[in-house]
């Protein structure tokens, strides 16, 4: 369902882009939506850059429940996922995604469906 397939210009206003980025990032990083901030900027070369500030979601330290992958690796994959999802939803290509973890929240395990 790509908007680019249809002829005509598709302009999505910036607040919508920011909210989209916010939602996509919150899902990719498994962080509460309310605490994720996103900024969408033009990086000066006509491409979009997304900057995300989010809490780091982690299990309680000391309980030996740490994931087997360090946070950085997970975050880098999340960056790619964010760019991909964003492009799918808005049709805009993202050249750059940066993530800053500014605080921490406890990881709530997903309910089994």
């Amino acid at each position, binding site marked *: 369902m790509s908007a680019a397939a249809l002829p005509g210009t598709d302009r999505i206003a910036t607040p919508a882009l920011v909210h989209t980025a916010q939602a996509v990032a919150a899902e990719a990083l498994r962080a509460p939506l309310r605490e994720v901030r996103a900024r969408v900027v033009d990086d000066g070369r006509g491409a979009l850059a997304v900057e995300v500030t989010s809490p780091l979601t982690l299990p309680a330290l*000391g309980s030996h429940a740490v994931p087997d992958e360090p946070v*950085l690796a997970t975050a880098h994959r999340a960056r790619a996922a964010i760019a991909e999802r964003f492009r799918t939803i808005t049709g805009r290509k993202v*050249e750059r995604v940066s993530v800053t*973890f*500014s605080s921490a929240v406890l990881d709530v395990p997903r309910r089994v469906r």
Partner: protein
Amino acid sequence: MNGTNRTLGRVVLVLVGLVFLALGTAAVLVQLLPAAADVWRTTADRTLGGLRTGAADTSAWWWALGGAVVLGVLALLVLGSIGGGRTGTVLEDDGPDGGLPGQVRIEAAAVEHALSAAITPLPQVASLAVDVRRVRRRTAVRIVVRTRRGAPPRDVVDRVEDVVRDLDALLGQRLPVLLRIVRGGSSRPDRVR
């Protein structure tokens, strides 16, 4: 735990101390002992001669001015080296080459919150403070724990070690961590949540 250069401080104290000690005792000796006064008078004219009244050449005073400026600058530099400092960022990583451009940054607050949430609930801990600081160009974490009265320190150390080991796995890196166990504690036998 801060970035002050302690060795520099000690060296400076020794140097300044020696100079002051020497000057002070010299002044006392010169005033009281005629022999010392003679020595002073002969050397003083040679060294300080250019600064006296009627000296033709004023270069001595220029030297004095230069020396004073240098001394002042050095003193200011030493004062400036007294550092302290919480850090903003703990980790920055650009990701694999060839991947999407952009970086991941982990700020001090994230690490501080994570450690705080993990250590505060421990039964031996009466209060806790965590901060990430820069010490001599390296990032280090300081955890200050106030234990309940009589609580064995070894328990606290073991539990904090567990927490920090998990943090190591999480960050993929071992940050230097200082644990300070501090006196004082809650006088209430039970903590009310």
